């Protein structure tokens, strides 16, 4: 018998109601699947077992992520100090504005690099994330202030 609603007869209405369109595209987990996973996890808990220790890979990854956060903070501070000692000799308005903009983005470069690596390598191997972090440190060293401090 055909249904008047026109929906697919095989379609589970509950499934449909508990899903956001586009969840799978964005890599998200829809609530229904999440609940099922949670139920399975609850069911399989062995009360007698100790809590599983965090895997060493995860620990190293977290340590690297936090450690590089501190380094990148230092980079940003270094650039804030650097732009105090660099200056443009240009007098026309456009050059002044462009120079100021350049100094501003140099200050936020460290923060941008860090957040971008964090955002774009959620599933990458730890080595890849650390590699991008290290490359950013090397490229973004605040040379203006470092050279002044070294001299």
């Amino acid at each position, binding site marked *: 018998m055909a249904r008047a609603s026109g929906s697919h007869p095989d379609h589970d209405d509950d499934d449909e109601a508990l899903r956001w369109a586009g969840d799978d595209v964005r890599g998200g987990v829809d609530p229904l699947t999440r609940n099922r996973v949670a139920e399975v996890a609850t069911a399989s808990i062995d009360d007698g077992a100790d809590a599983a220790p965090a895997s060493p890979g995860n620990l190293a990854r977290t340590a690297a992520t936090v450690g590089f956060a501190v380094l990148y903070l230092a980079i940003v501070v270094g650039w804030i100090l650097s732009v105090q000692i*660099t200056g443009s000799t240009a007098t026309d308005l456009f050059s002044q504005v462009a120079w100021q903009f350049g100094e501003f983005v140099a200050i*936020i*470069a460290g923060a941008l690099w860090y957040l*971008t690596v964090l955002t*774009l390598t959620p599933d990458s191997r730890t080595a890849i994330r650390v590699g991008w972090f290290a490359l950013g440190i090397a490229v973004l060293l605040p040379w203006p202030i470092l050279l002044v401090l070294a001299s």
Partner: protein
Amino acid sequence: MSKVVVWIVFGLLYAYPLFEGISNLIALPPYYAANGIGAAVPWWLLVIGVAAPVLLYLAALWIGRGRELFARTLILAVGLATANALVLSAVSWASAVQPAL
């Protein structure tokens, strides 16, 4: 479509550090020569100043290929910030290694 708009807008923003690099490349050697230190022109810094914006723009496009618009924009922004930081670094290195006039 919006992809192309992002490419063009960032292309214009990358043009400024590139312009700075090119004008340094053109203006610095004659300035050094006029002051009798023509042999000390820091060519590698001048080349970095011109190459960095171009290479970072191309690298940002390449790394961003196949990603969604937000990620592409973020990567281009990181490249732009890096280009500007590198130009400032190159300028500070140039004054650090400049012989006394």
